[in-house]
């Protein structure tokens, strides 16, 4: 059950501040606000902090559900094994690996994401940047796999600057449009970073 932050009837910045306070104590929060302006500020702040965000606008109120990205349980930090902090997968291009054949690189990346769905170990966050952002827009060859991963709780971040550069902002089909602040926080705060 999420922690409820009842912020209806409160103007900005109260919803943001109340949500921030709750984020110190809970991992799963539902902030209820009057309208899209307040919801947008809450969602932006949570995304900045690296949380997963879902906004559900209803007639009577807007519901912003935010969840802390999955981390390993605290006790495990001391033990040998995988380092604490999320496993971050970085996708800096449309292809997997570099080589003479773009076609091969495309086959490989399709195969990689398909395989990822079948394996047990999943990344917590996948970050797409540079030409990699072409994989999160309409027409991407791995869109279905990414949607499935997203539904399973894998956070998908796409570099907003890159989407803007390729003029793809309106065509994002999966994941969250993010900024360099969040991306750098995600990379630096990661337990492990795996780059394709």
């Amino acid at each position, binding site marked *: 059950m999420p922690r409820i932050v009842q912020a209806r009837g409160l*103007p*900005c*910045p*109260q919803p*943001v*501040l109340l949500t*921030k306070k709750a984020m110190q104590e809970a991992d799963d929060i539902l902030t209820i606000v009057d309208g*899209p*302006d*307040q919801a*947008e*500020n*809450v969602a*932006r*702040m949570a995304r*900045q902090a690296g949380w997963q965000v879902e906004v559900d606008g209803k007639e009577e109120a807007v519901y912003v559900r935010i969840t802390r990205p999955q981390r390993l349980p605290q006790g495990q930090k001391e033990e040998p094994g995988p380092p604490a902090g999320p496993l971050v997968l970085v996708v800096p291009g449309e292809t997997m690996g570099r080589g003479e054949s773009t076609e091969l690189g495309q086959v490989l990346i399709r195969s990689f994401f398909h395989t990822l769905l079948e394996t047990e170990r999943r990344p917590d966050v996948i970050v797409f940047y540079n030409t990699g952002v072409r994989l999160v827009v309409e027409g991407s060859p791995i869109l279905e796999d990414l949607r499935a991963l997203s539904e399973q709780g894998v956070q998908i971040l796409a570099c*907003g*600057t*890159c989407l*803007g*550069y390729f003029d793809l902002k309106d065509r994002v089909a999966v994941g969250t449009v993010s*900024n*360099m*602040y969040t991306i750098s926080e995600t990379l630096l705060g990661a337990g492990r970073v795996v780059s394709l």
Partner: protein
Amino acid sequence: MRDRFRAADFPDLLVGLETSDDAAVYRVSDEVAVIQTLDFFTPIVDDPYTFGAVAAANAMSDVYAMGGEVVLALNICAFPTDLPLEVTQAILRGGADKVAEAGGVLVGGHTIEDKEPKYGLAVMGFVHPRRILTKAGARPGDILVLTKPLGVGLITTALKGQVAEPAHVAAAVESMLRLNRTAARLAQEIGVNACTDITGFALLGHGYEVAEKSDVRLRFHLEALPLLPGARGYAEESLFPGGSCRNRDAYRKHVEFAPYITEEEQMLLFTPETSGGLLLSVPAERREELLSRFTASDEPAWVVGEVLKGNGIEVV
């Protein structure tokens, strides 16, 4: 309203509804035109005297944005019945002192009862009919000059949320209290092509009005824009007032941002200002003169962009 009062029927109305500038200007003779404006709002700082002074500075700013001087002012007040008398008096004293500083005279006003306090001024100023500064004169090749830093709206919003640093609030208050009088006088003496003040529609909203009325394109350089201390930090925490979203929704289609400008930086430039500075469009060859004259008068001025052919705004 534009249909009801057509400009053609009022030849002495030099600036009215159809040009939607900072204030109305009405010619009474070849030498004198009257500037008329009003503004009032709810408290944005805790101290009543400071609130009164800020509200007055903000209301009079429209006269300066038209290139004029303040002559007369009237109080506009709404106070709850249970507001202590000394609070009311402090608000009015703050306003009166500001009008006096502006060289004007406060001649009365009107008060009604209201749950939430409100204060401001109706202001009358004078300007020479041929020396009116409007939003409509910017020309390609001009430089854009801003006379106060941005960020008041973020800091007052953080203050409402009780999370603002006192030092940040102090700097914002100082900025709001400063009259645009000297800046407007210098602008008149140096000669500028367009002028407006930055208030509720934020830099990009008021900037767009200049672009639209002058039929030009404005380019702002993000790195050149002065920010009050703390403003960027509050923006990164998304402590935006509702007005930021409304301005963004209203003006976004007219503004192009370079791809590296973050959402928070964009929102900052859409955040309403209170008693903000003047935005001047100045012939490029007067750049050095303007900067040295402002420095000599101890008035800040930042070159923040330039005017291009085209329309809308770009931020790089």
